[in-house]
């Protein structure tokens, strides 16, 4: 790729255009490969599509732009602390589906840091839920017979099927 390019344009799965700086795009392995393979000079009109919806892609790009300076140059302890606080704020998405879409996107885009952060946030949201809430979120049917339920309950008095 040409070294003069500082930002690239990508398309979301909804067809919207987004700008992302090269250093931020490097946080994702597939995007990094894309940078190496595709010509991003001005006379090249090919715009790569990322299979992530617009709503989610906005958040992913926001994360990348915030984390890129640290990933590229290393950071002091105080920067790391500041970034940690930023991550907590960033993950304050009360709409769970954004969180889950972020997870899928981080997995698809091979972004280790965001994937780890999203998994931990999902785990923190889930840990206090009831079994039936969990089944609803993950579309899971209870496939235990009543005898099996009884046996599990005996072995682990802490568990509940509701």
């Amino acid at each position: 790729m040409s070294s003069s390019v500082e930002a690239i344009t990508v398309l979301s799965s909804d067809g919207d255009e987004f700008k992302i700086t090269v250093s931020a795009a490097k946080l994702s392995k597939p995007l990094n490969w894309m940078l190496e393979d595709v010509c991003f000079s001005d006379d090249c009109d090919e715009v790569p599509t990322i299979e992530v919806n617009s709503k989610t892609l906005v958040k992913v790009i926001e994360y990348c732009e915030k984390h890129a300076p640290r990933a590229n140059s290393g950071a002091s302890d105080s920067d790391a602390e500041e970034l940690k606080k930023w991550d907590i704020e960033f993950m304050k998405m009360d709409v769970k589906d954004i969180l889950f879409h972020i997870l899928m996107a981080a997995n698809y885009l091979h972004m280790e840091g965001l994937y780890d952060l999203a998994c931990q946030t999902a785990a923190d949201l889930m840990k206090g839920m009831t079994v039936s809430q969990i089944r609803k979120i993950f579309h899971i049917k209870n496939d235990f017979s009543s005898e099996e339920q009884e046996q599990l309950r005996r072995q682990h008095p802490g568990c509940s099927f509701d």
Partner: protein
Amino acid sequence: MEKDMPIFPQEIITSILVRLPVKSLIRFQCVCKSWKNLFRTPSFIAEHLHHSTRQNPLLIVDSDVSGCIPWRLCLLNCEMEVSEFENTHIIDSLMSGCFYCCNHMLCKMSGWLYSSNGLLCVKFSRNSQDHLWLWNPSIRVVRQVPESLNEPKYFSVGFGFSPIIDDYKIVKFFLAGFSVVVQAEVYSLRTGLWRKVEVGNLEGVYDLGCGAFSWNGAIFWIGEKKDVEVHNKSHLELIVSFDIAGEVFTLIPFPTLNSADSCYKRLASFENKLALLFTSDIENSGSWAIDLWVLEECTDPSRERWSWAKIYTSTPNPCWICAEIIWRNEIVCLVEAFEGEEGKVVLCNLTTNEFKPFGCSSRPGILEYVESLVLLDNIHV
């Protein structure tokens, strides 16, 4: 909202589940059969333990001043919150009616409760015979360790985990008069069997009882050896290490100390090295300070294999303290009970040099601990 939820690949679901606390997983095994089975696979248990260790390293503090069962154990988490240690009644009921080897000095927690990688090894006496149990309090599983090949009346124990062979092992030293090591057997949780191991290089080593420490795939003990070479001293302090994977004992020399006899010693690990904590009364002034030494191993055969370096000395503390272990960036110390005052725990911060108390009284007994699903897979014993 749930209608818009994407159908997750199993890989992502597993990545979330391994980050959940044990309590939630025990509940969520009722979600469906595949989750219940997933939680019992060795790879899930190992990955969960990895996250649990990284995120929630805990300390167990024995707050039972009387030294009798039932135990009063409490947990300290990274937020410095103290909570009651749950499920001790399982082990208490097993031990009820047991005679307890309650010579206070011999009955320190390290002498009978060992912790490694989410699992505890408990030693207690019944009819003046010592018995061993493996205990995972997080999932309420207790298993008796089978009798060893040799069943002596008294023995000394070490317990640890090796990531290389993914196995927990117990080492049992059989002791003759003056606590001299005469034989050793090793129990593997994976095979469920005891076997004898070679102790040739431990000849003359004695007094290994004091606080086995497990770290980095090995178990370490502070011991002593009758010294024939040094004439001005009748014995030599040393460290015995046991490589859990290779089942080999190695003797490691002690650092040269000025007042070795009068200080309190504990094994620990610091910055990925074996460490020794020494607490001593500075020139008998009634002020106590902690020295931290780390061990370097040299691979160059022309030089000494082992060398010790003193890398930290604490500020003096007016109380009689005993440095027990290093936990995160702090040395955990016990303040001895004195003149009617209860014993307590203080943390010495390695960066700020400050001593901070935390709200838990204790008699000697502090262990590192992590919540895990180990033993849930039911493949052992």
